[in-house]
Structures are given as structure tokens and as C-alpha cells.
């Protein structure tokens, strides 16, 4: 088994877990969103790695080139990136409103205030 042939997938798993760790272990809401972003990018890397063909060219038809990388993952991911920033900004907007209402973006402070009510 060639180690390098799975290296990309393992990096995807490591990145995904680092993002996941930030989401569950950090109390700051902005930090959680950054963690979610890393998680999301790891999925992008998985898709793009799957689409790569060794020795292939970028999927723009050129004379004399016969082997191209798979264009389908590229389409899925390039739209996902722009959708991702749009949804992240919804999350950030919610963070701003939570800060206005609670005076904090720390999950523990917010839960404490909720329990006191």
C-alpha cells in the first residue's frame, strides 16, 4: 500500500477533526464559526482531491490534451464556496445580535444568563 495515495484523505480527516474540536471545545461563538469554516474546507479538499486524475490537465478543452481532471467536483465546490460565505455571514450576523442582547459571545455566559431568567 502506497502511503502517499491516501495522504490527501488523511489530511482531510485531520483538518475536519481540528475544525470539529474547535466547534465543541471553544466557548467563543466567533471561534466556533471559524471551526465550522475549517470543517467545511476539509470537505472541499476531499471533493477536489477525488476529482484529481494523475497527469490530468485543468478541465478547459485544449487541442492535443486528452486527459483532464474531473470537472464535476469543481462545479459543486465552487458554488459551495460562495454559498458558504453567504451562510457564514448569516451566522456572524446572529453573533452580532446575540452580543447586543447578552453583552457576550461566550457560550457559558449566555447559558448562565438564560438560566437566571
Amino acid at each position, binding site marked *: 500500500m502506497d502511503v*502517499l*495515495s*491516501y*495522504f*490527501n*484523505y*488523511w*489530511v482531510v*480527516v*485531520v483538518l475536519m*477533526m*481540528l*475544525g*470539529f*474540536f474547535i466547534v*465543541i*471545545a471553544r466557548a*467563543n461563538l*466567533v471561534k466556533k*464559526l*471559524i*471551526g465550522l*469554516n*475549517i470543517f467545511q474546507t476539509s470537505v*472541499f*479538499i476531499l471533493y*477536489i*482531491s*477525488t*476529482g*484529481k*486524475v*494523475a*497527469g490530468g490537465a*485543468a*478541465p*478547459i478543452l*485544449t487541442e492535443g490534451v486528452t486527459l*483532464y*481532471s*474531473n*470537472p*464535476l*467536483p*469543481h462545479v459543486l*465546490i*465552487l*458554488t459551495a*464556496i*460562495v*454559498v458558504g*460565505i*453567504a451562510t457564514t*455571514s*448569516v451566522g*456572524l*450576523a446572529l*453573533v*452580532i445580535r446575540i452580543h447586543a442582547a447578552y453583552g457576550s459571545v*461566550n457560550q457559558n455566559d449566555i447559558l448562565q444568563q438564560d438560566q437566571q431568567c
Partner: protein
Amino acid sequence: MELLVNSVLLMLLVATAGALVVVRGLLASTMLTSVYGLLSASFFVTMDAVDVAFTEAAVGAGVSPLLLLLTVAAIGRGEPRAAGALPILAIVLVTITGALLIIGTLDMPPFGSADAPAHTHVAPRYLQLSGEEIGIPNVVTSVLASYRAFDTLGEVLVIFTAGVAVLLILATPGQRGSARPRYTPGSHSEPHTILQVVSKILIPFILLFALYVQFHGEYGPGGGFQAGVIFASGIILYGLLYGLPTVCRVVRPAVVETLAAVGVLLYGTTGLLAMLDGRPFLDYSVFAANPVLGQHIGILLVELGVGITVASVITVIYYAFANQFEMAEG
């Protein structure tokens, strides 16, 4: 060589993500996010995904850290807290999940193999026939705007909805829309003279480049999504250096908010025109007798709709966040 670059970039990505786990300050985290975006864009280039790299470079390294910065500026950096007890439960959970996933990857086809299941289904058809059927060299654009145009319509709708959601969440009583600042001449307190001069030279080229990416997307890497983000970043650069009231005088929020809807409408109407003629939704053969020419016109219209919506939504989101920041300031 390619494999070496690939491995180095991936290791740098892991290092940046690791730094993001360790670092507590929000400002440092934001900067690391920008580095992370730039690295992943470079990685996408080595994977032949030039269109994706284009998008990620504009979004991941530019717009996304900027929105984070504006959020951090609006809510205040806060005191970085001392590290609490080690979250043992989280570490155990992450390790177990990661180990299971790594076992799962062993069933994946080896990286780069040409006969992997992902390359044997519909992709060969796109690569072999799109030159004939659609007549444009960039297969990614063919798939995005023609073969899977219905998907793309859904994605544009999601982006539009997200823009509306940001407006609704950040709306304050007595204020409609993203930002309605009052302009007073010379209100900008701290002029950044060098940056302002340089940006004045740069912004026309950024906007021109966005238009090039928009209309050249059929032949090279590019298209509506990339062009929209680049166009918006030109406007945002102006806003950052001259202040929100000035940029709102140049690019009026009410106009941008309307344009966000116009883009989606243009896309949807392009599809409906085919239905009026009794053909399926988004069938471009309605535009010309020659099917390849019809595809050209259809893709042009659809990409224009995408570009207008993406540029407007990103600008509107920037306005809404910058408005929060200005309110926090004054």
C-alpha cells in the same frame, strides 16, 4: 514534484488549522483564517481546479476574513481568557471519530487513479461531448451553467436568501435595508493617504478584471461566481478606505439591494422563456435556431444573473456589517 508541492501545502494547511486551535485571540484567529484561505486556494491550483481556486482566493483569503474582522470590531475583541481545564471529553470524541474516518479512507480508491468510480459515471460524457454540444472550452462553465443549470439556480437562490436573512437579522428599528448612513463632507476622521491613492489606481482595474472574468468565463477560468466576488471586493476596498457614508453615496444601498433580486430574476426568466415556447425549463435552444449558439446566449444570460446577484449580495452583506461597526463606533 507536483506531489511534493501538494504534500507541503497540505502540511501547511494542517499547521494553520492547528494554530487556530491553539490561538485564543479573535484578531489573530481572523488573520490565520486569511492565511488558511490563501493556502487552500494554492492547493486547489495544484489539483487542476482553477475555477475553484479563483473563488477560494477571493472568498477565503479576502471577503471571509473581512466579515470576521468587521464582526470582531463590532462586538469588541474582549479579554482573551486563560486556558481552562483541558477538554478531555472533546479530545477523546475527536480522536475516536478521526480514527474511524481514517479506517474508512482505506476503502477509497487511491489518490489520482483515473479509473476511480468518481470518474466513470457522468464526467467522461461532460468531457467528451461538451465541446460539441455546448461549444465552449471551459467544461466547468458548461456543467455549471448548462448541464446542471437547475442546481446553480438553487444555489443562487440560497445566496440571495442568505443576503435577505442578514438584512433581517441586522435590521434596527427605524432603519430599512443594509445601511442608510448620512453623508457629511470630510466626516472621515483618519485619512490613509497612501492607501487611498494606491486604491484609487487599483479599483478601476479590479472592476475591469471582474468584468473580464465574467465575460471570459466560457474560455478560461472564471464565471459569474468569481466575477461577482471580485467586483464586490473592489467596492468593499473603496468602502474600507473612504468610509461607509462615502461608498454608499457612490454605490447606493437601495440600488444594490434591488440588483440582488434582479440577478435571480434574470436567471429565472431565462429558464421561463423556454417554457413559454413549450420546452423544458432552462432549455437554451429557444434562443437561436442553431443549438450551439442558443447555448452561448443562454449561458451568457445565466452567468450574468449569477454575477449580478453574487456581487450585490456580498456588497449588501458588507454594508450591513460595516453599518453595525459604525454604530458600535459612534
